[in-house]
């Protein structure tokens, strides 16, 4: 291979990546439409289209189903998938650990615990609207757990396995604490808590969507701005620092983003597992680890998997809407195992 051939191969690779990203984005749109059309009363895709773009062609009940129920669900699936997957991708890089994700390392459990605490104790802060206490407390607990993980990951003696084991310990600890809270909770609080621990899109509202959407839109540009530094960090911490990157500061900023993404997601839909693990892995296998591609692509693959899981949650048991968290685990685990066991040839 001479220089010109290498340039040509590079141009082909870039083209291939663009095509892959566009294809995933298109698949997201298809999954999104399918998600709206499936449910207790199946709607043909033509009605989905009309519901979104030509409301005068539909009856009032059909329009209400699409606009008030299906659309918020489907949008929530896309947003949560994108948020958790982006959080997972960043986490895998800054902790230098392919098994890191908000779910596997206990960040989601911590957020669940924070939310449970807020629900049961019903505490409030001055100047903070009551509706915000649950997500806010979820965020604080998530951030706390992320800080602990980071402190541990920074100790050289801990090693990669140590961080994962500590994360698993966090999962068990917070799950036990949530179970404890459930045990002493009132009947009303209990039903809310169960919703958390299962993970479901059923409580998607336009207000929730607006908050999560705002978090994703605010966080993403900062993630993208750190993309080059993250790519460098994959080549080793010493190397990244010798490029002039303040690794500590970058890690801290990234952890803030991860907490915001994971905690807001968990605050609105409960614990949804494996998206933050599977999304980035699919993106990495398809596109490599140049984070300028990896981060946006992770969001897209996460959104796609989540959207498909949402469709499956309505179809798997006819007449029943399964909590989507159950489905993501059911799809996520085999996909993940397949990814680990079969490493395909790459260009």
């Amino acid at each position, binding site marked *: *291979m*001479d*220089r010109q051939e*290498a*340039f040509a*191969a*590079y141009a082909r*690779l870039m083209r291939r990546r663009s095509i892959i990203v566009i294809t995933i984005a298109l698949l997201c749109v298809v999954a999104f439409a399918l998600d709206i059309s499936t449910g207790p009363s199946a709607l043909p895709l033509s009605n989905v289209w009309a519901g979104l773009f030509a409301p005068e062609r539909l009856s009032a009940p059909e329009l209400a189903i699409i606009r008030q129920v299906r659309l918020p669900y489907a949008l929530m699936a896309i947003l949560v998938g994108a948020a958790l997957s982006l959080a997972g991708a960043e986490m895998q890089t800054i902790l230098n650990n392919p098994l890191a994700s908000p779910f596997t390392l206990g960040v989601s459990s911590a957020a669940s615990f924070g939310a449970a605490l807020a629900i049961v104790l019903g505490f409030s802060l001055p100047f903070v609207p009551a509706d915000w206490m649950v997500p806010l407390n979820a965020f604080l607990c998530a951030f706390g757990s992320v800080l602990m993980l980071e402190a541990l990951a920074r100790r050289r003696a801990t090693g990669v396995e140590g961080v994962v084991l500590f994360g698993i310990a966090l999962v068990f600890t917070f799950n036990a604490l949530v179970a404890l809270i459930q045990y002493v909770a009132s009947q009303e609080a209990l039903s809310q808590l169960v919703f958390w621990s299962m993970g479901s899109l059923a409580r998607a509202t336009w207000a929730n969507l607006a908050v999560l959407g705002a978090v994703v839109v605010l966080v993403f540009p900062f993630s993208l701005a750190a993309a*080059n*530094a993250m*790519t*460098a960090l*994959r*080549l*080793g911490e*010493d*190397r*990244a*620092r*010798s*490029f*002039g*990157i*303040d690794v500590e500061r970058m890690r801290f900023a990234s952890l803030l983003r991860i907490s915001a993404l994971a905690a807001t997601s968990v605050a609105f839909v409960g614990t949804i597992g494996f998206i933050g693990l599977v999304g980035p892995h699919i993106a*990495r*296998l398809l596109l*490599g*680890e*140049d984070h300028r591609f990896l981060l946006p692509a992770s969001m897209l693959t996460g959104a796609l998997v989540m959207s498909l899981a949402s469709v499956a949650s309505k179809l798997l048991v006819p007449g029943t809407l399964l909590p989507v968290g159950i489905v993501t685990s059911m799809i996520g685990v085999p996909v993940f195992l397949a990814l680990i066991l079969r490493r395909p040839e*790459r*260009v």
Partner: protein
Amino acid sequence: MFTEALQIEGLSAGYGARTVVHGLSIPAIPPGQLVSLIGPNAAGKTTLLRTIAGLHAGEGSVRLGARELTKLSLADHARLVTYMPQSLPQQVALTVLETVTGALRASPVEGARLSDAEILERAMEVIDRVGITGLAMTQLDRLSGGQRQLASLSQALARGPRVLLLDEPISALDLHFQLRVMKLVHQIARETGMIVLMVLHDLEIAARWSDRVLIFAEGRLAADGAPAEAINSAVLADVYRVAAEVKLVDGRLRIDLDGIL
């Protein structure tokens, strides 16, 4: 063409209570020189390089021309000094070309910001000179140890530093590439005035290609000078604790360590 000399005075560095580099002073290294760092394991060579690179806190002075490097921020440091660690991680889904362009994108490079096309051009040129054009589009996880070392070197050279610090850059290379790398680094140093400090274990190679040799033992300088002066029987015997015999044959240094070399 860079014109500043590198000078180190009273430099100490260590880990916690354990001092690894003891008040080291290295008289001015003029621009364009290739200096080899030699010595047994744990003599403080890597710590010295990392301290010069600003990755490790130390006491004392490291001056490049009039600039005191120890007072510079990490980013300003990175503009002048490039450090190449011993290893490049294996399990990374990046091609060799991306490894080099990624370094250029992530680091402040002397002069203006480069455009995408310039970054690509510069990366390819270095990869070409190092002699691994055929591997440009190969992912790191498919390279041998030696190939990864060449990718790592390309990455370091592409940043065009004034001071290049190489930690055992040829340890995994075959004979062809050992010579090629030494020749290339020597040539670039002469062309640009870049100062090169490299940790080497092969005394013959150090003797043949270096302008100056620094021999370390237990964090102190045991010898400093032109290869023929610094590398001598007494110093080697003392530093490596083996019987050593150094002879000058036809203008080349012949080194015999306990009958091994």
